[in-house]
């Protein structure tokens, strides 16, 4: 194993919902080290009381996202080398979500909004019916497919300043889910989806800041999905009023 003797200087946010600040730690630099590895090392070797969250460790569960040098990232898939500034790194809890402790946030508001966007399928068929044939190249399917691999990591949510300013705003991930479902021809209640995203916290609050699409670790494009919702709801608005 090749180890450089160098130490990384890591600032980690400590505290809870009532406040906190950064604490400094030294961590030995290693090859192939991810930000999550660095954080774990601190908990395992220096400060056993440090709290963070992870599960899959390969970018599938979306539970390890943190602010790394002020940018939201999935830490299990972020190689330290790609984010190091000199030999320094600053790690904090995701923005825009309440902090439970240290680096772990309460993700409930994020998921409450997912549900509030009607982000759960409205069935047209039952388990006793055959599976609907779907042409994989058909327009709606392609559109829906683009946003489906979201891992609900809330990276986009914490990158978005509209969420910061407007706590009711449903946010990019939930809206993208709504758009995906809206394009799912199997869904029974596309009207309900448009209703859900047209209220005072809805898609119309998005200012196309684009941070969502910029930071999504899976290279999804919530900004585009939200534009789709705006378009669909505007079309319906005119249809209804004419």
């Amino acid at each position, binding site marked *: 194993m090749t180890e450089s003797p160098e130490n990384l200087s890591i600032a980690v946010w400590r505290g809870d919902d009532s406040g906190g600040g950064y604490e400094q730690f030294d961590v030995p630099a290693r090859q192939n080290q991810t930000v999550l590895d660095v954080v774990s090392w601190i908990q395992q070797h220096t400060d056993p009381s440090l709290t963070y969250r992870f599960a899959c460790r390969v970018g599938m569960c979306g539970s390890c996202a943190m602010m790394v040098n002020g940018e939201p990232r999935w830490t299990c898939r972020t190689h330290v080398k790609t984010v190091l500034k000199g030999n320094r790194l600053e790690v904090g809890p995701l923005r825009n979500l309440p902090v439970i402790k240290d680096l772990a946030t309460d993700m409930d508001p994020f998921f409450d909004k997912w549900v509030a966007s009607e982000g759960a399928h409205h069935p047209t068929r039952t388990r006793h019916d055959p599976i609907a044939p779907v042409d994989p190249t058909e327009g709606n399917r392609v559109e829906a497919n683009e946003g489906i691999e979201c891992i609900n990591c809330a990276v986009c949510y914490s990158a978005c300043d509209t969420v910061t300013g*407007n706590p009711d705003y449903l946010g990019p991930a939930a809206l993208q889910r709504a758009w995906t479902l809206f394009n799912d021809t199997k869904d029974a209640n596309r009207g309900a989806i448009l209703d859900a995203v*047209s*209220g005072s916290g*809805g898609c*119309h609050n998005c200012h196309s800041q684009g941070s969502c699409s910029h930071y999504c670790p899976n290279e999804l494009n919530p900004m585009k999905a939200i534009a789709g919702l705006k378009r669909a709801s505007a079309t319906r608005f005119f249809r209804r009023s004419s």
Partner: protein
Amino acid sequence: MLDIRLYMLQRITALIMAPLTLGHIAVMIYAVQGGISAEEILSRTQGSVFWFLFYGCFVVAVSLHGAIGLRVVVHETFGVIGKTLSWFTWLVAAGLMALGLYAVFAVTL
């Protein structure tokens, strides 16, 4: 703090204003050449139904557009919500509208 109605209103007013403001800028660039005077402005605009409608439309649109715009900014920056926010929006709209229409009458009547 934008539902679909306010959003549509903001977009529609923006679309109305786009040609108007571009036209306005064009006229201004043309007009400012060699200095500008009250007389010059008034000679162009006074008694003109066209300019009355032109600026009238603009004022109505911009009052709504600007008010909704400021509403969003005020909400997101200062956390103003609920009734206060609505009052703010419509007061700004009314104020802009009043001042604007007064000006339109001033230069076109």
